[in-house]
């Protein structure tokens, strides 16, 4: 028996069943120019953000022909109705293990830029998971894929995010 099997596993049948299953679609409110400006100010603070994110006149002179959002902009912030916690997180919380969660990182692949007026649709699925020994004992790694498309069904972003539980 491997070392990984000496501790309580966090892999539940629920987690196994969720692998590869796309969740419900979420739809963002239309992106406002001021949402983009505030995002850029916050992430560039205390320095001034680039004009492409807030100066419509300048942005028209660029290849983008208008204001674009920073690549990491989140149009889903501040929902009226809070979505329930993803089932993938709950599934890992079995017994005494899995109570601590960490953001392990992400890889984003970008398509078209987000712009004022865009409405973004998102769907997520548990792409994969594995369990292995780490510094904190047995650790569960989950890999969640989230795809964003815009109102014209153009791909905006694909994110593979790594969640860690122990």
């Amino acid at each position, binding site marked *: 028996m491997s070392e990984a099997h000496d501790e309580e596993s966090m892999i539940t049948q629920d987690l196994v069943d969720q692998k590869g299953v796309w969740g419900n679609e979420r739809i963002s409110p239309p992106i406002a120019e001021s949402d983009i400006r505030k995002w850029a100010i*916050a992430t560039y603070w205390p320095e001034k953000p680039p004009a492409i994110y807030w100066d419509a006149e300048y942005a028209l002179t660029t*290849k983008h022909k208008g204001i674009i959002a920073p*690549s*990491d902009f989140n149009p889903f912030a501040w929902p009226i109705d809070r979505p329930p916690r993803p089932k993938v997180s709950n599934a890992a919380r079995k017994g005494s293990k899995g109570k601590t969660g960490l953001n*392990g990182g992400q890889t984003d692949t*970008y398509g078209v830029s987000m712009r004022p007026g865009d409405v973004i649709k998102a769907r997520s699925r548990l792409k994969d998971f594995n369990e292995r020994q780490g510094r904190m004992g047995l650790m569960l790694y989950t890999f969640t894929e989230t795809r964003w498309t815009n109102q014209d069904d153009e791909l905006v972003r694909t994110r593979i995010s790594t969640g860690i539980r122990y």
Partner: protein
Amino acid sequence: MTIKLYFEDINIGDELSPWSRTTGFMNWNRYAAVNDEFVPFHMDDEAGRAAKNEQGAFGMGNLRYAYIVNALRDWIGDEAEIREVGCQYRAINQKDDVLTVVGKVTEKRSENGENLVTLETNVTNQLGDATCPGHAVVVLPGR
């Protein structure tokens, strides 16, 4: 239209212009406000210590990611594209840390009509610790 960086001018080993911020509540609270990320251990020292960080509240991984995106945008200018960014969060962003985004070109290639440049990236702190190893791919205009 001002082109900041041409594909032909890039060489393997070229470095990203360093991009730094001294981080603390002024940065974190602004980011929490735009990203709706009011997690207690990012807002409050006691909650940070309860989350096993002795120094108290600590910064968001997502904000470090934003710093990487910003460093890339500042380097490539507005006539280029960020195609891919990936990173792992390896160390905590403590209050008053000076975070610097660093990067080095590891590959350049033309593919499907696009000029792609790959970089190895990281976010270091004032102690030189590598807190966020990763990579990025940008698309640059040609001459």
